[in-house]
């Protein structure tokens, strides 16, 4: 009978699955604690900006290093890079004015990269900054890199055709967010935007109308990479950027493969952070998270010298955490990317309700939903623990599992009806389901409203968005409170759309505190930001800090020198090598 054979087919499948299900899960996992705090400052000693970078123990030259990633790198053009993978890959083929010296353990200092120091604040007012360019810098074609090439690179980022990259330098120079109308860029021309000058080949000057003490940090982004005006190919630079770093792009099939090979004109003596260990880097795009990480577990062939860029999925985590053989292949660290439950204070005007939300939150169950401590780590502060000058505090102490009684007491019998906007992909909806069930225990009435995943970000950034709560993420461009608290809570920056202040906090007292701290020497700002963080949470409770993402990645057994970068929380390739 057909029936019997078909049933037999099913039975074989069933048996195979059942056999693998018969082990008891006692919950004993070895998940080593992983906390990291940064002790970072700007290092103005020119010696520290010199190369060559210290050798990595056991590193050797040679071999091909592979990187597996599902989605392509959206931009390779340094002036357009803003994705994490772009920011972490750019240092291989492009250098910027300043760069971070990072040991992956929290020792983080800003040093000069193309410049001899991380900039000189000429009049001590943060308005005029001067950089001296190092000797011996060359592009991949052997041409010397001058201050004019760096200035041209910055000028290029004014071009409205070349969107996507950071806009700090442009906005500060033009003194307006409409920088592309304030000054028009002409390709291959020598004209420079107002305030940017290159008086000679070795000097670059920024003159701002307003003080910008964070310039040395902003100059570490790849948008300050140099480009020879003659070599500017406009939008096509995205597929073939001109290298100034230790590697150059030798093959680029968008969405499939990116090959980087050694750039013979790169001089290690000029570079404080980069190495040139592998002969070649090959990025291969396409394999999804499951596939890439399963390949790392198999650890065979060329995959042995590969990194799976995408985190181990929570569905595979128990397998990886439980396998002691894999522990040498794990790369893990908490990141500076923090998720918070933003409370729209325009709608939820009652402070006690916002405080009750803070008391009610059960971070322990939320983290179980996400996949455990290897996926997320709870936080109670607005700034993530990696921030310079960070201080731990909990404005609404309720333990890991929340204090429902305290929340109910604050609500005093009220049952606030709140709408939680959530992206409609499966992970976000699970988080929303978790939050709803959690908060309803304290007496809230939560409606989960799915918003199409692709537009959720834009819609919550609209001032008059109709939701009370939504989960937001913030990953700063540099680990200073200056790039976290003012963007998130400065009420003067609120516009109709495109807001980062998605809680829509507008408090003049807080705003003037921002101005005061921003005018301080960056080295002294750290503790001040920490105090302000606490004050915002206590006085306004505009959000419920939830967790920071934990990076948990696998690499092959022969991939060496990898570490999780402290600034963006993604793997850094500057020390990478292939083991023998």
């Amino acid at each position, binding site marked *: 009978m057909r029936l019997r054979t078909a049933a037999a087919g099913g039975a074989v499948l069933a048996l195979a699955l059942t056999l693998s299900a018969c082990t008891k899960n006692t919950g004993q996992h070895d998940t080593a604690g992983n906390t990291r705090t940064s002790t970072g400052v700007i290092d103005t000693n020119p010696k520290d900006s010199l190369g060559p970078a210290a050798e990595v123990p056991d590193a050797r030259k040679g071999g091909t290093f592979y990187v597996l990633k599902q989605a392509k790198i959206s931009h390779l053009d340094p002036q357009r890079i803003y994705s994490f993978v772009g920011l972490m890959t750019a240092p291989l083929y492009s250098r910027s004015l300043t760069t971070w010296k990072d040991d992956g353990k929290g020792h983080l200092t800003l040093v000069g990269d193309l410049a001899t120091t991380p900039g000189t604040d000429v009049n001590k007012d943060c308005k005029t900054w001067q950089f001296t360019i190092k000797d011996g810098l060359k592009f991949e074609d052997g041409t010397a890199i001058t201050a004019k090439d760096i200035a041209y690179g910055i000028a290029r980022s004014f071009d409205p055709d070349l969107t996507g990259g950071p*806009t700090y330098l442009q906005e500060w120079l033009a003194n307006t967010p409409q920088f592309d109308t304030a000054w028009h860029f002409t390709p291959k021309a020598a004209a420079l935007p107002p305030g940017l000058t290159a008086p000679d080949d070795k000097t670059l000057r920024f003159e701002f109308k307003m003080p910008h003490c964070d310039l040395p940090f902003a100059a570490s982004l790849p948008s300050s990479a140099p480009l020879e005006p003659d070599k500017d190919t406009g939008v096509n630079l995205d597929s073939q950027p001109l290298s100034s770093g230790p590697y150059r792009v030798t093959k680029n099939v*968008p969405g499939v493969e990116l090959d980087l090979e050694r750039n013979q004109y790169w001089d290690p003596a000029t570079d404080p952070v980069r190495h040139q260990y592998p002969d070649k880097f090959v990025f291969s795009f*396409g394999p999804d998270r499951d596939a890439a990480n399963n390949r790392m577990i198999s650890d065979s062939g060329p995959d042995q010298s590969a990194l799976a860029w995408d985190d181990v999925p929570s569905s595979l985590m128990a397998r990886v955490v439980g396998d002691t053989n894999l522990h040498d292949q794990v790369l893990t660290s908490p990141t500076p990317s923090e998720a918070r439950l933003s409370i729209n204070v325009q709608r939820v005007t009652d402070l006690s309700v916002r405080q009750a939300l803070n008391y009610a939150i059960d971070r322990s169950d939320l983290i179980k939903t996400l996949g455990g401590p290897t996926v997320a780590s709870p936080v109670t502060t607005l700034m993530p623990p990696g921030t310079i000058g960070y201080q731990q505090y909990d404005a609404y102490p309720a333990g890991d599992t929340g204090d429902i009684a305290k929340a109910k007491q604050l609500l005093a019998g009220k049952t606030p009806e709140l709408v939680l906007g959530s992206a409609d992909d499966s992970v976000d909806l699970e988080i929303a389901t978790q939050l709803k069930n959690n908060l309803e225990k304290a007496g809230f009435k939560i409606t989960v409203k799915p918003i199409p995943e692709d*537009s959720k970000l834009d819609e919550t950034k609209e001032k008059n968005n109709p939701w009370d709560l939504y989960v937001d993420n913030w990953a700063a461009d540099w680990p200073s409170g200056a790039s976290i608290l003012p963007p998130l809570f400065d009420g003067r920056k609120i516009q109709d759309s495109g807001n980062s202040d998605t809680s829509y906090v507008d408090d003049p007292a807080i705003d003037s505190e921002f101005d005061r701290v921003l005018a301080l020497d960056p080295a002294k700002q750290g503790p001040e930001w920490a105090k302000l963080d606490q004050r915002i949470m206590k006085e306004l409770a505009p959000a419920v800090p939830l967790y920071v993402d934990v990076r948990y990645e696998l690499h092959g057994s022969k991939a060496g020198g990898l570490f999780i970068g402290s600034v963006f929380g993604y793997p850094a390739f500057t020390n990478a090598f292939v083991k023998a």
Partner: protein
Amino acid sequence: MLRFLVKRLLSAILVLLAVSVLSFLMFFALPRDPVTAMCPKNCDAQRLERVRQELGLSDPLYQQYVGYMKGIFVGRDLNSAQGGHCDAPCLGYSYVNSEPVTHTLTRVLPVTLSIVIPAAVLWFGLGVGLGMTSALRRGTLLDRLAIGFSLTGASLQLYFVGAVLLLVFSYTLHVVPVPHYTSILVDPLRWADGLVLAWVTLAFLFCAIYARLSRAQMVETLSEDFVRTARAKGLPRSTVYGRHALRAAITPLITIAGMDVGAALGGTVVTETTFGLQGLGRTAWDAVREGDLPTIMATVLIAAVFIVVANIVVDVLYAAIDPRVRLR
């Protein structure tokens, strides 16, 4: 015959036009705004509007549509944000991939063809083989096994079977490499190696309909007079089954195969996702998610062309194989 072809082609062109108009309109109804996606942080409304203009997305819809369609036949001049002049056949410039869409298509089309065509040969062969075997050995264990096997396949899901096969054969036993695409022109062995898992999975899942149909056809044909006559004439079994019986049974099979291949070429999103291959389906899918209008238009049109052409080919083949069919 000629009249039929002309009529069919005209109707096909109308279908393609309608598909292009509808997918164009659909794009503008999408919740995703491609411009905000391009300008992730620090972009206010005024700047967004300027980017939109650079990309030509703020022009009147009909103007954008006509511009796009014109580009396919005579080429068009795009501005510097879209890579400058674009020769015919111009499918536009993808502002998400930073390359002309024709480049994207020449890259991803071979992947989809390499998945579908060998898989189709395999599922056709496997299906017809199973069906014939069980027809000739009616009522035996072999018959039951063959039909049971094909029904099992038909009742399973691609992503399910794909995941299990990947886990067992690629990740655990290392019998087959993890699916990847290498051009057949570069290294035919690596090409086959990287796709075999996808072929086998597709064949297993798709062969059922062919097995069922060819079995039924064979059973019916075997009982017809001309087969009995042929057998009586003393023709060898193989000639009778192969030439006479199979020929009569094959017409509807060809029809299904044509339709299936057309549909598969246009929509292998699930296969490509399961096996991590970047083909036409996956590219169309990504384009919709990223709001990449030129790529959406191009992939949708190509898929529609496959389906429409498959339809015509099937009609013509039908007439060629079976002289009883007259095309009007």
